[in-house]
């Protein structure tokens, strides 16, 4: 990295000094700002635009112990053609699966333009050795994952061992090769907005291409104020280093209304430059059908029943 921040991680104390030197986040103020942006009224043409934008930003996700190749193939078909009755619906950005199912997804999505993302590094807890985490990453990359969603070591972060967290991200990034690295902060376990800001910067300094809120396995998952703090971080990181990093809220985003609130947040915090699947993703599964339902409602003026949208 050719930025003045390269020196920050040269020792535990410089890293700590830098992260603790970031401006604090006032929780009440951040909550109020996110709530205010949540009142924006997005109607008619703007809503239409937002729905298609949101569909194109979805990382369609299945991360269950019960996942099978059949389940993943079905989800991939949905990802490419979300609404079989309407070819004007854009495909989603990516599908997100466990490493052992990457090959299945890659095969199912060949030539579609939809990317394959894989969680890695002993997702969701991250409780393993660095060797295992790197091997986990390499497995997914070798199987053809274009994007790796890693988890940080929250235990090390909360214990103040920022350098350990940093080094694991650097090692994972290296194992990614050309694949993009999304770093999951698991903000529900970091608890404070100050920690969210510090973890965001830590991940970006270590080379994250994206910072992501949550695994979806911990409650609370993505929230508007947490995403606000992360959007401020990528905005400020671009100004400081010239490098642009993406943001992915994941977990708990189920309705079109929710998704639009996130788009407004992006638009008025990081700015419209981030409103593209290269820079903003929505990690979700059930959201997609609600987006399709609202899209059809806008086109026809009527709501179709839920059975008109495929469950995959």
């Amino acid at each position, binding site marked *: 990295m050719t930025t003045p921040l390269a020196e920050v991680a040269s020792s535990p104390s410089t890293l700590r000094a830098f992260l603790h030197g970031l401006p604090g986040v006032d929780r009440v103020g*951040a909550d109020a700002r996110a709530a205010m942006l949540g009142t924006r*009224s*997005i109607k008619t043409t703007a809503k239409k635009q937002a729905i298609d934008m949101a569909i194109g930003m979805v990382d369609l996700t299945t991360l269950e112990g019960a996942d099978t190749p059949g389940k993943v193939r079905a989800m991939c078909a949905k990802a490419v053609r979300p609404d079989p009755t309407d070819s004007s619906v854009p495909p989603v950005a990516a599908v997100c699966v466990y490493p052992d199912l990457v090959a299945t997804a890659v095969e199912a999505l060949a030539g579609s333009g939809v990317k394959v993302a894989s969680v890695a590094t002993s997702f969701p807890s991250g409780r393993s050795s660095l060797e295992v985490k790197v091997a986990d990453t390499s497995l997914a990359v070798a199987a053809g994952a274009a994007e790796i969603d890693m988890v940080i070591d929250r235990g090390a972060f909360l214990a103040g061992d920022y350098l350990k967290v940093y080094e694991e991200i650097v090692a994972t990034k290296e194992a990614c090769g050309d694949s993009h690295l999304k770093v999951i902060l698991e903000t529900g376990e970091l608890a404070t907005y100050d920690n969210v800001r510090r973890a965001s910067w830590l991940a970006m300094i270590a080379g994250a291409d994206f910072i992501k809120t949550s695994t979806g396995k911990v409650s609370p998952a993505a929230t508007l104020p947490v995403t606000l703090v992360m959007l401020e971080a990528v905005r400020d990181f671009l100004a400081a280093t010239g490098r642009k990093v993406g943001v992915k809220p994941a977990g708990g985003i189920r309705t079109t209304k929710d998704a639009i609130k996130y788009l407004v947040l992006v638009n008025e915090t990081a700015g419209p430059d981030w409103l593209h699947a290269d820079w903003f993703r929505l990690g979700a599964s059930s959201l997609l059908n609600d987006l399709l339902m609202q899209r059809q409602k806008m086109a026809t003026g009527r709501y179709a029943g839920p059975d008109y949208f495929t469950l995959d």
Partner: protein
Amino acid sequence: MFEYAPAPESRDIVDIRPSYGLFINGEWVEPQGEERHKTVNPATEEVLAEVAWAGEADVDRAVQAAAKAFPVWSAMPGAERAKYLFRIARIIQERARELAVLETLDNGKPIRESRDVDLPLVAAHFFYYAGWADKLSYAGFGRRPTDGQGGSDPRPLGVAGQVIPWNFPLLMLAWKIAPALACGNTVVLKPAETTPLTALAFADICRQADLPPGVVNIVTGAGETGAALVGHPGVDKVAFTGSTEVGRLIARSLAGTRKKLTLELGGKAANIVFEDAPLDQAVEGIVNGIFFNQGHVCCAGSRLLVQESVADELLEALKRRLGTLRLGDPLDKNTDIGAINSAEQLAKIRELSAAGEAEGAERWSPACPIPDRGYWFPPTLFTGVAQSHRIAREEIFGPVLSVLTFRTPAEAVEKANNTPYGLSAGVWTEKGSRMLWMASRLRAGVVWSNTFNRFDPTSPFGGYKESGYGREGGRHGLEAYLAV
């Protein structure tokens, strides 16, 4: 790009009459004089309605109606008065959307603010003081020891003459009427001449709530009507919110009379940002401090005092943020900055801004299209402002921020207090000890800690120095309406 399509709130919900009389003794009555004036929508200059201007004879009639209602209302058990106030609060909640639209039409403020700030606070104020009506003996002002049976509630004052401004028409009405009624007073209220419509709608709410006739009387008009009300010998208590200039005239005219007086006047508040502040939230607080309600706020954070070590960083972030403010149709749900309330106020803002430039401060506004009709002023900030500049000393009452810097906490306090006003202040720091150190030294009625322009009916509000005297809100707000 992501352009928000227009999202206007429907104005069909409000039913504005072509002309309004005066609300006296529970009835709509015609004024004795012929004088009528038009109230306009400042965003479009469209005439909304014609309103009567009350003369001395009309004011006299209103005060007499209030005086006649006083024995009944004040003798009523507090729990009974509370019933009426709770009823009014509920009706306001039920009609909140209608009242918000009406407020926005008459005042020019964005519907987002009238809907999310003004109306919830109006209802909350009535709910809060309704709760006090039967607990006045426990408010800390003592019991009346005259009835030989262990005392009774502290006594109300009588007829309250209340004059309110145009910046928060219905909210200021609530601040005046709710505590007065809870304590057992009756009132004659004069709304501002440019924003009478929600007060007139409130008259209908009083009827809807079956409030006894004469307890609330509303007389519309301008300064002369206000002067007649304030000077009326039947008035026992005067409450005024408005400019320091008019407050001074009122204080002078009441000197030597038996009337009690509370004044809530101008301000030139300092919003103080230290280098260890939560900067993103401080930026929001600065925006909310001076651009909320187009800066038509007596406690607006019109002077930004920023520590020199973070001044450049903060100003860059602030300018970026101002670039996202949406100025335009106040009824659009996505509008952040609405219209200036009147041509007169717009002229004042322009005059003071021109003076700022002439005195050498640097003026900046974001690129911001201004509608062709109506009264508008873009969000504006001045950097390089010195304490001696007029824009650092005089109340502009518009969306204009003067930016000054400081080096040490002591210098921040000195500059913040170096104003004839003392209504509010804001401090931004993550360091608790510094916050307390600052709060104990700032000469201001309200000191906001890592926030700005937050209001709550339980919290007393009022000024030091030329920002007035007396407190509104909270337990303290009862004192102005009790014989204590």
